């Protein structure tokens, strides 16, 4: 019984640490052009691979990427660049044509000229 409560305490403290911690969490939202489920995976993966990004959720219909990140660890431009490198354009970074042309069919989005 005692062990159990210790365990619960451990879990909760872990959770609280994850929540408060020493990190400065910030929210950001910006447009990333894409179409489908596969784009979603690629965009979110690219964003999450940037150190300091805690959460990335890209919404298909609105093309909006919602980010929660640690502002002390990264500049948001790094996320734009990482996503562009994966093939998706944002307002601040444009994907290389070749990378774009190699995207799977369903991900070919209409590029702004």
């Amino acid at each position, binding site marked *: 019984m005692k062990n159990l409560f210790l365990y619960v305490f451990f*879990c909760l403290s872990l959770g609280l640490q994850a929540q408060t911690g020493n990190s400065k969490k910030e929210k950001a939202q910006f447009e990333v052009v894409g*179409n489908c489920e596969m784009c979603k995976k690629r965009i979110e993966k690219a964003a999450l691979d940037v150190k300091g990004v*805690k959460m990335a959720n890209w919404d298909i219909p609105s093309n909006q990427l919602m980010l929660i990140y640690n502002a002390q660890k990264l500049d948001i431009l790094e996320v734009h660049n990482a996503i562009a490198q994966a093939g998706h354009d944002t307002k601040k970074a444009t994907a290389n*044509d070749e990378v774009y042309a190699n995207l799977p*069919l369903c991900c070919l989005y209409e590029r702004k000229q």
Partner: protein
Amino acid sequence: MKNSLITLCLAVVFNSQAQQQLTGKVVFRATSETEALAGASIYWLNTSLGSTTDDNGDFSIPIATDQSRLVISYIGFKTDTLTISDPSKKLIHFMREDDSNSLDEITLAQRKKAVQKSYIETQNILTVNSAELLKAACCNLSESFETNPAIDVNFSDALTGTKQIKMLGLTSPYLLITEENIPMVRGASQAYGLTFTPGPWIESIQITKGAGSVVNGFESIAGQINTELQKPFTATPRFINLFRSANGRMEFNGHLNSALNDKWHAGLYLHGNQRNQKMDQNKDGFLDAPLAQQFNILNRWQYTDAEKGWVGFVNLRFMNDEKQVGQVAFDPQKNNSTIWGSEIKTRRWDTAFKMGYVIPEIPYTSFGFQGAYSQHDQEAYFGNRRYDILQDSGFVNLLYNSIIGNTNNTFKSGINFSYDRYQERVDAKNWDRIDRTVAAFFEYSYDNKENFSWVGGLRIDQHNNLGTFLTPRMHLRYLPDPKTILRASVGAGRKAANIFAENQTLFGTNRTINIQNTGGSIYGLDPEKAWNYGLSLRKILLSGDQNADITIDYYITQFDNQVVVDWERPTEISFYNLDGKSRANSLQISFDYAPSNTWSYRFAYKNYDVKTAYRSGFLQRPLQAQHRYFANVGWESITTDKGKQWRWDFTYHGVGKQRVVAQNDNMPSKMVAAYTLLNSQLTRAFSADFEIYAGLENIGNYTQANPIIEADNPFANTFDTAQVYAPVFGRMIYTGLRWNL
């Protein structure tokens, strides 16, 4: 023309550039995806130099030397003329539909698949949604699996017509059956519990093969079946369903859902069923199906405040079910000791409360609370035997979900209390028991968002009868390529065997009950413990307009201890702790193919090697076919603008040879022949809101010759209604309607 040809030739000879091709792709935008435009024509303006796109929308065209303007055209789309400045660059061109002179409107609607095999989940989960549930003939959760090869439906006995489900070769007590993740069919409700959830209440079913998650408890050994009920927030406001079958079964369902304000939604779900016609097709003097009536009411309240991150549910439910079975001449009002009859009366109360809070600032962190209380009160007699069970259950689960680092690493943790009080009366003997558990669990999930994910869970339970123990579970998923999904799982499960409730069919026999008391905590027996190991491979062969995939599942369940239910000796049923080996190995190979939006095919072969060390030897479990075959063909017409549609489906079950136990000294254990079951259903939707369906069950009219042993002599000690391996009821026609008012 000639000139351009000459130019071309010259170009080929003199200009190495001309050898080069301009390559590209022509696509158009369908709702949320880009699709290839096949057969579009591509040509250089004012030349004869042209090409067309292939099935993938790809084209290549020799580069023209004297022309940089490229024309792309396709009927129904606007013709575009592009200026190509850099022909070495791959061209990707979007075509726009030409609205000005549109042809007949082309609707590109992707059909939502009725059964979805998991792709993203780490666990091997099959989701059966309402479209698939409509294919089932009738009427409640126990009958919702007939069009699905993952679960085998068997006949539990020759009296009640109840269907019993099996997964991986193990009966439902070895499955964790939950309703919106709260354990539901367990203990006292094991025998008939699945018939207490009306089909139209079900929104979807998730079937998890193998160990499952530690969040929901330690009881899942072979897998988990979770039922999601209709939600007042999303369900149709008013719904009516009527059903009538030729064997006298009538069902009514009425739903009412309404929004009270922008946060509260309420739903009222009513169900009634009745069969008051005595039927004895096989002339054995016993009713083939019970006289029965059920009344079932559910009231749900749903609270949603998306802005502040709160969601909640309150459920209140009451059910009353009465069945009369036995000899046709039996009249419960008359106390007649020469006629065998039985009545089973069940009353059940359920209340559940759920609450979830997602921190709006950090949506990856959430808290959940689930609380439930139920009372299950069953009173029954079977001939001269009596069986009553009253179970009070309480369940509380506190959950905390969050991330470690980023959302690729998530965890669920929490604590769980559960309480069950059983008061049982078997003939003149009382068996009372209380089960109490306090548990803590932690489940970590990693997903690289590409091709690998794993879930590891651990739970520690402190149980008054099972002791303190750990339950580890682990699931892996790996995609060597995007069309191949490999899964593996391993996990332990435990359970207190409620020997009477789980084997209630024994009361439809005159066998003597033998419990080999070894001083254990549950009926003198030890808790059951098993390990489950699973491997699954799914290969997607076709996707897009055509879908095809092949799945191979192999699962092994090994019991460290089992409460062996031994029917091997006539006139006797024994329960004892396993002494030796017990295993259930199952292999399933299934092939799904949907060549178009109108046709779909599903084929499966299943092999079960389910053997237990009985006193009389290491034997395949009785009434368990080693081979089972399954096929389902579905067809649906294209829905018209007004929602008119035809839907048809046909299901085949091939059940291999089964072993039946010895019936008396003259009839030793034997194998019974394989048989085939065929079902079909046709639905006509007159509009999106009104449809009529009709179907045939058991088209081949296959029935078991003598489902009741010693039907002429129901008070003899060899009388037995539990040895049922095939339908008792022959061909049956039914019809019904569904109406969204």
